[in-house]
């Protein structure tokens, strides 16, 4: 894993999410797409660290710190372990993985926000569903530029 390139990619995605995508009503969650990308293409140890770091980046532009670090870290690790059994090589599997991961992380983040004392909106699930759907559709297409930047060969399948 090239950690410097990883840091640049995460900062770029975080800034893009907080700036360019902030004004759109319908937008993908770039950090979640990257979470799935690294869980699928990095080794298990790298996937654990990258999941928590991506969650931390998501928290930096979120309302409170902590919930997304935990939810991204937990589900990113689970996906990395699951990838040792089920391969997410085809685009529609990757899209499905992003969609499911987005819903799971969204629900856990909401629950942790509730524990933290943050009010929960009545239409929170609709918001999660919207983001999950858009992320699921766009995500697999963003895997290619991410793989190019990280110098990861997506066609070389390996499990660590």
């Amino acid at each position: 894993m090239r950690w410097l390139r990883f840091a640049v990619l995460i900062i770029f995605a975080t800034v893009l999410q907080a700036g360019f995508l902030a004004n759109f009503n319908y937008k993908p969650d770039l950090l979640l797409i990257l979470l799935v990308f690294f869980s699928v293409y990095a080794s298990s140890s790298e996937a654990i660290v990258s999941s928590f770091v991506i969650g931390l980046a998501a928290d930096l532009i979120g309302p409170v710190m902590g919930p997304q670090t935990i939810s991204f870290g937990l589900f990113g690790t689970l996906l990395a372990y699951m990838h040792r059994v089920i391969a997410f090589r085809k685009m529609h599997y990757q899209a499905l993985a992003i969609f499911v991961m987005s819903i799971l992380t969204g629900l856990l983040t909401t629950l942790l926000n509730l524990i933290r004392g943050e009010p929960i909106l009545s239409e929170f699930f609709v918001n999660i569903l919207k983001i999950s759907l858009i992320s699921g559709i766009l995500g697999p297409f963003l895997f290619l530029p991410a793989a190019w930047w990280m110098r990861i060969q997506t066609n070389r399948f390996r499990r660590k």
Partner: protein
Amino acid sequence: MAWKQKTYRTHSNRKSFLDSISRRMLFIWCMLAGLILLLAPKSFTNKFQFAFASAFRWPIKIGRDFSLSTSQNQPYIKNLNRNDIQDRNQVIYLKEELKQAYDKIDKLSGMRNRSPMAGAKLVIADIIAPYNDGSRAELIINRGTDDGLKKNQLVMSDYCIIGKIIELDSRRARIMLLTDAKSKIDVTLGEPEIRRTMQGIGNNCAKIIPQISATNKISVRDEVLVQKTPGLLDCPMIAGIVTECKRNEKVPSVWDITVQPACDITQIDDVTVIIMNP
């Protein structure tokens, strides 16, 4: 060759460092770090968020400005230029100030009076980062307790109240906009004045709760004013414009009222914090 060997060894060592730690331990450490962040006081964790917003202020702003050309959230505002919006909001404010002055003259004839904003301190602050994420609408500004700011102080732009301070440190503050889904503020609207609460619903909109009886005359483009609040605002000020007023589908005897901010929040670069009693 020796150099190559050394490089290889360094790379190999670095790679093995992560692999030398068991995955279970790695996961537990990271999870503990996450839990510490979750349970740490907000005043402490805010520092990280403020630092990130400050460090990447310019790329975030450039990205936001670039995306603005494609968003059309406020059709009623987009038709006006910024000077027109400022003039309109200022006229509404002056009308309210005048009305209040007449009321005071009636009540306290003979006593010395002053303009509601005369004693107030206005602190101009630059926006470091805007966070507009569906239901969430917040701004981070570059003023804090060192500049006399306190929690719950109201913030205006273009002579229009846009939000209030919810968190702050010595040099930065977080503003929750009135359209944020967690925001609630007391407002007046209609003629005669009806007192209600304006609750943000996200996507640059707010609604009026509890609903107003359909016997009251409310129409699109009516002004929604923030009620005067002792210590925070001495004179009602415009907060929004009614953009939709329709009968409730389940209970047709009440209005469902949607409000949008009276200024284009996406276009502003600085805001003014009202410190009523400095």
